[in-house]
């Protein structure tokens, strides 16, 4: 019987297999940032251990960094970033600190350097590591104990998750994006729908996505509970990688591409679960609640808790409406927002900024609007293309690279009661700042919303 893509990549990385034990899996790339690593390095020091493969490890500063120029004002954040610098120096790990041309959100810089390649295993102490699966590898988030384990051994003991295919047939209609697709998928299968699975996104609509779009889809796999999300590599993948600093070159490139072409699910392979979705029926999606599964097409209204048959979903909806300050029956298009955030590891890449700029060109924003490039390189490229002038002319703020308003950990936050349209990945209570209310949207919907001050699709302008 044939094998799925996930099975092929997994098998390629098994260092040791024994009855009744998890597989010992080799890790090809370990990404590190300041938040989830300090206690892991402390653990190494306590045990007198070294980093086994500093040459397969790379660090950046992203979660705590301010997105305006200048030093970190918060002494606790500053200490955390300084701790990463000390640890990177002590253990010989390449670090891209604030201000460095290579700095950026950890999941933006890996692909940008060409370090993220098909068929690899990639981990990071961050749940959105699933982003890297867009290149056809297995990439997943881990906790600090596992960060320490990978630092010490370059391996992880793990059981292979089950496999799920999400088959996306048809074409995405104009104005409907990768973000809308993944929000629709999460709304369909729920925040627990992917638990215990590696998801492979397949089908015509997925093949048509750019690498940026594929990364957006894989990024939010974790929001459906999945361990990882992946997409088989193809010419789009190879074209994105070719010429990047860490991509193979010359003869090695040809060898690599030949191997990468074998990284596809065999026609006779069987997935443990299959979910089907028709892309051609989708429209822009937004979330109305406090988990990413609580999403609907923008044309609909805030649902009534009574419309949920399952008592758990009903009480979650009641609670969400209360927290979000929303009434059942209100059209989603009438919800007013104070803040728009374009950025994050979900939607902070150049294509995202281009699509937001296209909508803001010649228009004025009515809300506080933060445009935050995912990396310094994305920032430079956007400036070369003049996108920053478009944003500034529209009245938006053009910022430095970082995680920014995705997670309420650096100075970019919502105040209690403030409401955002955000291109990030989580609408949890307080995620963007205590008491803040988040609606997840695509960059296009974010930009259109900034123009009207209400949740708006570009087509409504």
């Amino acid at each position: 019987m044939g094998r799925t893509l996930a099975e092929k990549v997994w098998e390629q990385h098994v260092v040791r297999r024994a009855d009744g034990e998890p597989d010992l899996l080799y890790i090809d790339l370990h990404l590190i940032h300041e938040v989830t690593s300090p206690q892991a390095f402390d653990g190494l020091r306590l045990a007198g251990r070294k980093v086994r493969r500093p040459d397969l490890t790379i660090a950046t500063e992203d979660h705590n960094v301010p997105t305006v120029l200048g030093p970190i004002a918060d002494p606790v954040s500053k200490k955390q970033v300084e701790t990463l610098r000390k640890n990177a120096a002590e253990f010989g790990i390449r670090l891209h600190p604030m201000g460095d041309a290579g700095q950026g959100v950890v999941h933006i810089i890996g692909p940008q350097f060409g370090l993220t390649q098909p068929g690899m295993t990639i981990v990071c102490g961050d749940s959105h590591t699933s982003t890297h699966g867009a290149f056809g590898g297995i990439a997943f988030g881990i906790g600090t104990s596992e960060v320490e384990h990978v630092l010490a051994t370059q391996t992880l003991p793990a059981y292979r998750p089950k496999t799920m295919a999400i088959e996306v047939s048809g074409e995405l209609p104009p104005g409907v994006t990768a973000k809308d697709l993944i929000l629709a998928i999460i709304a369909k299968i729920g925040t627990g729908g992917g638990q215990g699975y590696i998801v492979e996104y397949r089908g015509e609509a997925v093949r048509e996505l750019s690498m940026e779009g594929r990364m957006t889809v894989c990024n939010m796999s974790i929001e459906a509970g999945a361990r990882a999300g992946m997409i088989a590599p193809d010419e789009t993948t190879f074209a994105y990688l070719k010429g990047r600093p860490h991509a193979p070159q010359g003869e090695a490139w040809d060898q690599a591409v030949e191997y990468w072409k074998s990284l596809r699910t065999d026609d006779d392979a069987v997935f443990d679960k299959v979910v089907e979705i028709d892309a051609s029926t989708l429209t822009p999606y937004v979330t109305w609640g406090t988990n990413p599964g609580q999403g609907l097409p923008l044309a609909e209204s805030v649902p009534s808790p009574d419309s949920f048959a399952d008592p758990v979903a009903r009480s979650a909806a009641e609670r969400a409406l209360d927290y979000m300050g929303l009434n059942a029956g209100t059209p989603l298009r009438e919800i007013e927002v104070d803040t728009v955030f374009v950025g994050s590891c979900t939607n902070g890449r150049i294509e995202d900024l281009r699509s937001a700029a296209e909508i803001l060109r010649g228009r004025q924003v009515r809300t506080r609007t933060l445009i935050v490039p995912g990396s310094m390189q994305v920032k430079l490229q956007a400036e070369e293309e003049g996108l920053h002038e478009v944003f500034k002319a529209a009245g938006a703020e053009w910022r430095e690279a970082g995680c920014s308003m995705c997670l309420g950990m650096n100075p970019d936050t919502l105040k209690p009661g403030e409401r955002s349209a955000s291109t990030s990945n989580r609408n949890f209570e307080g995620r963007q700042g205590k008491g803040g209310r988040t609606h997840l949207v695509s960059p296009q919907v974010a930009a259109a919303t900034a123009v009207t001050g209400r949740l708006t699709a570009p087509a409504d302008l």
Partner: protein
Amino acid sequence: MEAFITHTGTAVPLRRSNVDTDQIIPAVWLKQVSRTGFENGLFAAWREDPEFVLNDATYEGASILVSGPDFGTGSSREHAVWALQQYGFRVVIAARFGDIFRNNSTKMGLLPVVLPGDKAADLQSAVEANPKLEITVDLRERQVRWADEVVAFEIDDYTRWRLMEGLDDIGLTLRHADDVAVYENGRQPWLPTTV
């Protein structure tokens, strides 16, 4: 890691679903570089509400948290596990857990117990009826017991053994350092390094 064989204690019923790790420990608490001091951050935003169940003196001293489904979803922050442990919990019971949270828990010796949804809800009701109800979570027998109820739960043999012995994963893996070295010699030549 402290070994876990069996634990008897009282419980707190948390009647919420999708308890993401941002709720368990908000991001502002993640700026610490130590592994201790997270107990005050546990459910920090929810605890501001006097009606929140952890503020109910009836449940003081509880060491088992019984939650609605999808506990520990979202962020990979292991700080969520540290906060629960440092507050005094040794077990979390729910119908479903976020995968990363569940993994992190077993690395630290906090036992995540998956009970079928109606059984977790039954246990919540039993605790609400009698907050001093003694509950035994027996990892050796893979059972949760309270009053006349005996409910079996599943956990793989390896993780169970590791928890019962209190073993550190890194130490176990380092026994296979030779296998790792052999594997490394056979890696594909084009794979990137960060150098």
